[in-house]
C-alpha cells in the first residue's frame, strides 16, 4: 500500500517521542548519555541499512558522512554563528552532495569492489579530518558550544534527549514513508535482482545514486544529533571501528527492517555496557568475547535477531493471515504498477 502509515508504525514513532520527553525526568544522566548515543547510532544504522539492506549495496562510506555532519554542524554553528537548524540543514546538503559524488562512481561497482572503494573513501575522509588543521582542528580535535534551538539550550544529556528523540522519530517516519514509496520499492527490486529490475524499466543507476545521497543525508543528520549532547569531536571517533559497530547493529538486528535495525542498535549498543559489568578477572577478555558474540550471532542467526523473531511468528499458526501484511519491506516486494 502506498502512502499512509499503519497503526503499529504510528504507535512506534509515537513511543519514541513519548520516551524522548518522559525519560529525562526518570533516568540518571549517564543513562541519558547512553540513550542519546544509541539514538544517534539508530539514525546512522537506519541510513546504512538503506544501502546495505534495502538496495543491496555493500557500501562502507557511511562514517565519512557522519563526520561531515558533525564537523559541518559544529563549525557552522560554533565558529560562524549560524543557527543550529540551518547549519544542520547545510551539513545535510553538503553530505548529500558528497553522497551524489560518491554515488556516481560507486554505482558502477559491485560487491567487494564497492565495499573496498567506499571503505577507502571513509579512511581518506578520516585522514582529511585528522590532517586539515585550520578547519577541523587536526588531531587535537574540535571543541564546540552547545547548540541553542529557538532559545532552548541543549548542553546537557537531559536537555538534548528530547531533541535527539524528535530527530530519530522524524528519520524513522521518513524511512517508513520511503518504504512505501516507489523509490523504496525500486530499491528493493534492485537488491533482489539488478538485472530483473533494469529489465522492468527501473533506472538502476539513478536509484543507486539517489540511495547513496539519501543515506549520506541520514548520516549527516546523525552527525548533527551528535553535536547536541557532545562538546568535542576528534577524528579518532570516525574510524573503522565505529563503522564496524554500526554495520554490526544492522546485521545482528536484521537488515532491511526498521524494527530489526532498532533492535540491533539496542542489543549491540548495550553489549559493551554489559561486558563492562563483568567480573574483573574476565574484563581482559572483553574484546575477545565481543568478537565471539559477533561470530556466533552471524553463524546462528544469519537473518539477524529480527529475522529469527519473525521466523518464530511465521511458524506459529494464526487465525487470520495477517503476517503477510505485518512484515515490512523485508520480503521481496512484488512488482506493482501504479
Amino acid at each position, binding site marked *: 500500500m502506498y502512502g499512509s502509515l499503519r497503526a503499529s508504525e504510528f504507535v512506534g514513532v509515537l513511543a519514541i517521542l513519548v520516551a524522548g520527553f518522559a525519560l529525562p525526568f526518570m533516568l540518571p544522566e549517564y543513562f541519558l548519555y547512553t540513550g542519546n548515543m544509541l539514538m544517534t547510532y539508530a539514525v546512522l544504522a537506519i541510513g546504512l541499512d538503506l544501502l*546495505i539492506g534495502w538496495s543491496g549495496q*555493500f557500501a562502507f562510506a557511511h562514517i565519512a558522512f557522519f563526520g561531515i555532519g558533525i564537523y559541518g554542524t559544529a563549525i557552522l554553528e560554533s565558529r560562524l554563528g549560524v543557527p543550529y537548524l540551518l547549519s544542520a540543514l547545510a551539513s545535510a546538503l553538503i553530505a548529500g552532495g558528497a553522497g551524489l559524488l560518491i554515488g556516481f*562512481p560507486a554505482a*558502477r*561497482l*559491485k*560487491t*567487494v*569492489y564497492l*565495499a*573496498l*572503494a567506499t*571503505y*577507502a*573513501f571513509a*579512511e*581518506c575522509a578520516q*585522514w582529511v579530518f585528522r*590532517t586539515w588543521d585550520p578547519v577541523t582542528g587536526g588531531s587535537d580535535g574540535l571543541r564546540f558550544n552547545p547548540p541553542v534551538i529557538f532559545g532552548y539550550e541543549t548542553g546537557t544529556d537531559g536537555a538534548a534527549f528530547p531533541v535527539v528523540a524528535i530527530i530519530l522519530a522524524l528519520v524513522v517516519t521518513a524511512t517508513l514513508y520511503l518504504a512505501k514509496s516507489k523509490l523504496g520499492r525500486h530499491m528493493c527490486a534492485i537488491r533482489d*535482482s539488478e*538485472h*530483473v529490475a533494469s529489465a522492468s524499466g527501473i533506472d538502476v543507476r539513478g536509484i543507486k545514486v539517489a540511495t547513496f545521497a539519501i543515506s549520506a543525508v541520514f548520516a549527516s543528520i546523525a552527525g548533527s544529533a551528535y553535536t547536541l549532547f557532545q562538546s568535542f569531536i576528534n577524528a579518532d571517533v570516525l574510524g573503522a571501528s565505529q563503522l*564496524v559497530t554500526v*554495520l*554490526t547493529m544492522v*546485521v545482528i538486528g536484521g*537488515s532491511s527492517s526498521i524494527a530489526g535495525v532498532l533492535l540491533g542498535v539496542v542489543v549491540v549498543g548495550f553489549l559493551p555496557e554489559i561486558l563492562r559489568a563483568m567480573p574483573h578477572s574476565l574484563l*581482559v*577478555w*572483553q*574484546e*575477545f*568475547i*565481543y*568478537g*565471539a*558474540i*559477533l*561470530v556466533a550471532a*552471524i*553463524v*546462528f542467526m*544469519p537473518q539477524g535477531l529480527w529475522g529469527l523473531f519473525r521466523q518464530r511468528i511465521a511458524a506459529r499458526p494464526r487465525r487470520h493471515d495477517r503476517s503477510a501484511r505485518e512484515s515490512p519491506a523485508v520480503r521481496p516486494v512484488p512488482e506493482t504498477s501504479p
Partner: protein
Amino acid sequence: MILQATLSGIVMGCVYALIALSLVIIYKSTDVVNFAAGEFVMIAGYLGLLLLDHFGLNYPLMVVLTVTLMFAFGALFERTALNKIVGFKYAAEAALVPMVVATIGLSFMLKGAVRVIPSTEEVLRLPPLFSGPPVFFANIVLQRQDIGIVIVAVLVMIALTLGFNFTAIGKALRATSQNPRAAALIGIPVKRMRMMAWGLASGLAGISGILLSPKLLMTPDMGNVVMLGIAASIVGGFTSLVGCVIGGIVLGVVQNLIGIFVSPQAIAVTPFFIIMLVLVMRPNGLFGEAMRLKKV
C-alpha cells in the same frame, strides 16, 4: 636515495603481495574478503615468537610448525563458522555481508585473545630469517633479512604457480573457484576444497607474519597491515594471482616514493587513495577479469 627507497619498497611489496595472495585465494574460492587476514599475520608473528622463545624450537622447525598451525586454524574457521553461513548454497553473493561481518568478528577475537597475554604489552621482536651485517652494493645498503624476504616470497609464489597448475589439488581448487556446481558434478569435494583454500590462505598469511614481524613493531594492532594487502589485491584486480604480486610491489614502491616526494604523513593514506583511484578508473582492477553474471 630513490633507488634505495625503490628497493626497500620492493621488499615490503613482496610481503604485501603474500597477504594479497592470501586474500585473493580466499575471495576466489569462497567469495568473501577476509578482513581478519591482518590478524592472521599478527597471530603468526606471536606464535612464531612463542615457539622460538618458550618452546625453544629452532628457526626452520618454528616456521614449519607456525604455518601448519595457521593452516589448521584457517580451515577450522571456514568449517565451523563460514560453512554454516553459506549453508548449501554454492553461489554465495547474498551471504557476502554476514560472512564479512563474521571475519570482522574473528579479527576482534584474535586481537582480544592476544591482548589477554600480559607480555604482549612489552615491545617484542621476532628475530629475522637471516641475520647478520648488511650487504653493500655500490652506495646501496641491503639488509640480509630483506634479501631473505624477497627470496622466500618468490619461492612461495613459484610454489603456488606450480601447485595451482600442475597438481591435482591445485586444479581442483581452481575448478571450485571457477564453477563450484560443475566442480561438484565431476566429483570434486567442494566443501573440502573451500576448507583447503582457507587453510592455504591462512598458511600464506602465516608466512607473511613471520617475514613481516621482524620489520614492524609487534603489537596486537599490527593487523591493520591488511589494508595494504587489500590495496595490493585491488590494484591487481582481486581475481588475478599474478596481478596481486605486481600490485603488491607497485604499492610498496609507490608508498616509499610518496614518503620521499610528498610527505611522510601521506604514507598512511596512500593505500586507500590507490584503492579509490584504481576502482574509479577501472571498476575491476588493473588485471581483474570482468565481473561475471552468476545468477539473475
